[in-house]
């Protein structure tokens, strides 16, 4: 009987090993894509041109909050996956005291796509549409825009060109 006890014990011991075999997958796949905007020169449509002192804000719970961006000729902005519209306030610095604010309204349909065990679901944006509006009646600094893709499904390419 003593041997049997040892035998049973060793069986239970093997079972404990199972605990060491969990969570070997981490999320490395692409998740919900950002809206990528690329800025071009209004005079020379082929030349990329960064925006002087660009600040991007969006409304959260009735309050404007600044989105962290790296001010280059191309920026990535998050879209609100719980709504069908996201509004951005884009501020361009004209000189030390004057700046021009324009409003960019992005409308879309949200579709949730399964990615995998560790990433869960991501959203993609279908039938995206862009509208530019003036704020403070000081004219638009965004002279024109060009939509590159109808849907935002990944971050491989820019989705919108803005000329200024």
């Amino acid at each position, binding site marked *: 009987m003593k*041997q*049997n006890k*040892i*035998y*049973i014990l*060793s*069986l239970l*011991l*093997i*079972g404990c*090993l*199972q605990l*060491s*075999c969990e969570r*070997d*997958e981490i*999320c490395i796949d692409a*998740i*919900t894509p*950002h809206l990528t905007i690329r800025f071009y020169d209004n005079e020379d449509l082929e030349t990329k041109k960064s925006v002087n002192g660009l600040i991007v804000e*969006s409304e*959260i719970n009735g309050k404007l*909050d600044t*989105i962290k961006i790296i001010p280059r000729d191309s920026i990535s902005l*998050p879209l*609100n*996956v*719980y709504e069908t519209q*996201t509004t951005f306030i884009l501020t361009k610095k004209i000189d030390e005291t004057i700046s021009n604010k324009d409003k960019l309204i992005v409308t879309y349909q949200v579709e*949730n*796509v*399964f*990615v*995998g*065990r*560790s*990433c*869960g*679901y*991501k*959203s993609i944006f279908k039938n995206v549409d862009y509208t530019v509006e003036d704020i403070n009646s000081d004219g638009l600094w965004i002279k024109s825009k060009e939509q590159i893709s109808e849907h935002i499904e990944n971050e491989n390419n820019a989705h919108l060109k803005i000329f200024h």
Partner: protein
Amino acid sequence: MHILKYFIKAVFLLCFSISFSQGIGSQKKDTIYKNKYGLRVGIDLYNPIYTLIDDDRKGLELVGDYRISKKLFVAAELGYLENITDEDFINFTTNGQYIKAGVDYNAYENWLNMENMIYVGIRYGYSSFSQTLNTFTINNDHFFHSLETIENGQKFDNLNAHWAEFVLGIKAEIFNNLYLGFSFSGKKMISTKQPENFKNLFVPGFNRVFLNNSGFGINYTLSYLIPLYKKAK
């Protein structure tokens, strides 16, 4: 790699535990020992014990084998399982039945009239099940919201899976005709009917489906041999 490591450890410990069981029953008699032939039926103890510790897994598995020769046994397992998987961004319940059938080969040379087994086996497995997506979180930029968990409850019905298993196990007769067993199985998915916009990440009888479509399982079984006849070979 984790599975391989685990496998090697399991094999090592298997050999270890067998060295203890060899000490059982060392009486001496000058008779020809006959092997018991019959139908062995039992239950898996792993799931009932697991349920006591963790409510996320509820299941029952019946096991059985029938001896066809000195070394060969036809074996089958029949079970149902309800399992909740909780990941960072998804939580889902898998519910279904499964059946496995195959053969076991006893590689252990018994002493005297002992009827212990160290065996290798193969199985074909089939499961029919459903997946219910309880909650999910859209993996996105934190700017607008802290990540929200969305209640879903969407059910994916009529799913199935076919797979192959390699089994390594031991069975020891602890009392007359009563066996305690342990086995480890490595599994490989052959085909599975996937739900739309979701994935079979857990399959009853197969357990967690790893990225390379492999899986593993553990069984502790308690079974009783219904002896039908005895044969010297």
